């Protein structure tokens, strides 16, 4: 008989423990995560179907290698003057993106790899240059140690391009897919001809948890 009572009491205690109320709960009570460095060329722990770091890295690396192999851009004689900035990059895709991330990485890595075989015109710094030139010519500061020129550098080529995307949505499964196409074109600033072109494509597919669909 005593055993039966014990069984009943144990059962009640178990039930009561099982029905622990969660009326007032704090879910996010973990101690957080220490900062970790993640490889920029790989998909991170937080990701979607837009343009991410690994896309920018592999896209600019591929374009850089391709440009360095082009004899029109890299010649053994006179170094060509090139403008690479986001002024003529157009985003027609459905991904919001800071285009400077692509053009800055491309210009800087090219500049380092070309080692003088290409000269980059910093048109995005033209205001800075003009101010200093005015100070020098106004006599407020001296002429520096390198040289003085009548005009700033004109460019031979300038980069243009377009980012486009094609979205596909499965209304049944709510799976989302986005194909990106990024084109880069180097334009001769006198003739208007395109001396080099590059294209980078990628496609991502994902499906959110059902509680968010």
């Amino acid at each position, binding site marked *: 008989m005593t055993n039966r009572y014990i069984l009943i009491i144990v059962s009640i205690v178990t*039930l*009561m423990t*099982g029905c622990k109320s969660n009326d*007032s*709960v704090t*879910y996010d009570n973990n101690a957080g995560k220490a900062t970790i460095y993640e490889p920029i060329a790989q998909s991170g722990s937080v*990701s979607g179907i837009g343009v991410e770091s690994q896309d920018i890295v592999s896209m600019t690396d591929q374009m850089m290698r391709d440009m360095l192999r082009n004899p029109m851009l890299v010649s053994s004689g006179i170094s060509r003057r090139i403008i690479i900035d986001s002024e003529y990059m157009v985003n027609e895709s459905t991904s919001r*993106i800071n285009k400077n991330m692509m053009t800055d990485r491309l210009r800087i890595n090219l500049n380092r790899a070309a080692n003088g075989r290409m000269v980059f015109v910093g048109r995005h710094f033209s205001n800075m240059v003009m101010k200093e030139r005015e100070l020098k010519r106004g006599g407020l500061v001296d002429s520096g140690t390198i040289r003085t020129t009548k005009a700033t550098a004109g460019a031979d080529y300038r980069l243009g391009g377009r980012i486009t995307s094609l979205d596909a949505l499965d209304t049944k499964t709510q799976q989302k897919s986005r194909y990106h196409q990024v084109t880069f074109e180097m334009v001769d600033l006198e003739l208007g001809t395109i001396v080099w072109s590059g294209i980078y494509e990628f496609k991502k597919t994902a499906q959110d948890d059902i509680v968010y669909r």
Partner: protein
Amino acid sequence: MNLKRQHKMTLSTAKSLLLGVSATIVLGCASTGPTKYKSFQLSETDQTYVNSKPLYLQESYNTLFKEGKRNQVLNLLQIGKLALDKGDLDEAGDSFEQALVQIETVYSNSEDANRARSLWYEEGSKTFKGEPYERSMAYYYRGLVYLYKHEYDNARASFISGIMQDAFAEEEQNRSDFALLMFLAGWSAQKMGSPSLAKEAYDELKGFRPDFVIPSSADDILIIGESGKSPRKLADGLGHYQLVYRRGKKIVDKRIVMKTDSGEFDLYPMEDIFWQASSRGGRPVDKIIEGKASFKKTAQNFGGGLSNVANEAMIISGGLGSVSGTNISAAFSLIGVASMALSANSKPRADTRYWNNLPDLVHVKTFNSKKVSAPKEFIYKDATGSITHSKRPTMIGESTNQSIYWSTSN
């Protein structure tokens, strides 16, 4: 003999009492209302961050930290809207961007999403990402900030992304019908110098708003006025499992007129946000919540039925002085109580958190600055045309390519 029967009667009474008490305790410990979430304590760093924010946003940032990750997106969206209404475009842009980064993150194998699917936690335990109409509105506001900053391509990307959030409505005719975003995608394309993309968006818009006059290529003034209050989410049905939408309470403003030195012009009512919220239809997660509600009901009925059987068996066995009958009734009772406890602790309640400073209606108009002088004031009117109040634009971005004027009444 009498003593033995008396002993048995005492035993059965004790068991009944024990089971009754246990049932009361077990069921009593179950929750009835929505889950209440504890606030987090702000760390010194959090507090410094809050103090670094403009005074009008400090309370909202305080809430952001107190409510933690679960409501982070919701709080960021509300902060963004508050900042926009103060004309603080940088703050608004940052808040909407942070919110969108989380909205765009694909949640797979997320701990709190798994929890929200479980029987024992309500849907509201998940990290808030908003319903499609809220996500679309997040893209709308992010796009407005881009427009203001003349980043037309990113503005267009935002508006198109907003349209795509609306692509999963249950009824086919309600899919991707966010006319406001189509109009703004067309406007952005026009301003970024892509007439073919602009035409594409405007052609789509014509299908939904045939009476709207498509902006001329010479138009350079964009006016956007918002009126009314946010759609509300309510939980209906047994266990509050059914998510329903209601229009904001006591909405007076229905029309907006723009006052300029050249005269007054009616703004076109382009979008009904309540319609966007309520026309989505059923969500895939509703099936899960409905399943929870069904489990709750079944377990409750099963438990109640067993308890009744146990009570009757207890009375009969007590009357006959049968020990085994009493034990069987006790077992029935225990299973009944367990089943009722499971029912009482299952959480089918739908998530009713909503973005509370959205408008009810959005009105638009475009002009050519050579024909119409700069807008001065938004005049809000009720359904009968009587003026309720007026307000100066809170977002003013004037340039040669595009001037944007925006205001909200709520």
